[in-house]
């Protein structure tokens, strides 16, 4: 891997905890890596696992889904559903040959600005290790 390789990470953050956590990281001037592009969703349970496949197709090198800690979900149980889904999706992608380091999930509460930074650092580190996602990216094949 060349040294300048910087992965693109797409992060789905839940509105109530993780997005607020990211906000806190920002307002408390914590430096986290800039590789991450954030999409705010109302709940981690809203993230359809197909978003993840689509993100990998469209150029993401890694994906992060982040929600409230179990039991803290604004909608009571959305993150429990998400947990099951992404557990399975991760296994499936791994079976197809996608490096499991590309699929990450975390629980970050609104008060965990510092944890948010750690999560991002780790996600980026894992994606860096996995290298560019070139397996089933939409390429301009014979266009």
């Amino acid at each position, binding site marked *: 891997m060349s040294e300048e390789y910087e992965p693109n990470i797409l992060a789905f953050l839940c509105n109530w905890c993780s997005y607020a956590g990211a906000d806190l990281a920002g307002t408390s001037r914590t430096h986290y890596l800039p590789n991450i592009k954030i999409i705010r969703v109302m709940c981690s349970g809203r993230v359809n696992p197909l978003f993840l496949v689509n993100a990998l*197709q469209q150029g993401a090198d890694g994906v992060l889904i982040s929600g409230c800690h179990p039991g803290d979900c604004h909608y009571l149980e959305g993150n429990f559903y998400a947990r099951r889904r992404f*557990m399975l999706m991760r296994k499936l992608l791994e079976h197809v040959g996608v490096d499991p380091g590309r699929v990450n999930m975390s629980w970050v509460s609104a008060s965990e600005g510092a944890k948010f930074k750690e999560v991002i650092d780790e996600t980026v580190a894992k994606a860096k290790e996995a290298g560019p996602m070139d397996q089933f990216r939409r390429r301009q094949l014979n266009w």
Partner: protein
Amino acid sequence: MVDETILREKAREVLARDDVRRLIGWKRGTYGYESAPAVLKDASQADELIFDPTCVQNPASFITLEEKLPVPRGQDPDTRKVAVLVKGCDSRAVVQQLVEKAYTRDGVIVLGVPCTGVVDRRKAQKMFGDTSEPVMIKEEGDKFVFIIDGETREGPRAELLADKCVRCRFPNPLVYDELVADEVAVWGADEFADVDEFEKMSPPEKWKFWEEQFSKCIRCYSCRNVCPMCYCLECVVTKQKPQWTRRSTDVSENTAYHIQRAWHLSGRCIECGECERVCPVDIPITTLNRKMTRDVKELFSYEPGVDVEAEPLLSCYNPQDPEEYIM
């Protein structure tokens, strides 16, 4: 052993009922090792039904295939029942469809057919060649006896059995209103050696394998359509607005399709093996499904299609679900 005269008699009785609209079973195919799914509407057709080792199709797929057209004004909807003949594996599809409330238990009449395994057409073709005349197959001990163009040939059961049958744990229907024969002994074991073997590969090796497989796909969607669990009225892969998967065939889109398919079947696949059987370009689709089945079992101790009272895996949760990968 299933006595076809009893099977036909029972089918005739069911078809003669006023509250039965159609019966789905198997009939003789037009050539070679093929049988055909039979959709019967009249008791007089019951003699078409057969049951022998060519009856590989899953009749449960056809319950949900029928289009629901709007009922013309002034007419009552047709609420008559659908009767279906099922082998053990097929009955799991019925169970899972009931779990998902695809229809109600009252809406179907299930005639259970205990099964001792069916023949894989491709394996038989390799062993005996092909023919344009229908082939008769009988099971005799550990052999299958074929009558091909009037000639009697024999082949070992173990080599001709469809893959799904080799590891079958449910030869007897799990849900039925009536059995047409006595239950048979179970032979298969709960094992995933094939999945373990595949998992030994590194991610790049796995991808190399799948890249070759997925690049063959012509996106005829027969694996989706034949699947008894794929009964959505509108499929996400053909949806135009928003369009998640493009229609063009290339490795990227084909992979996305197959991932989506396997994903939508995780915790739902009942291992009837139809998807792999119908594939015209031999993609080992069940390899994906088997992996999900194994993981669902290991992670959530869940097996689809065995318990009518169960809740669908992904519409419930357990607060103690594993989460070792979550940061």
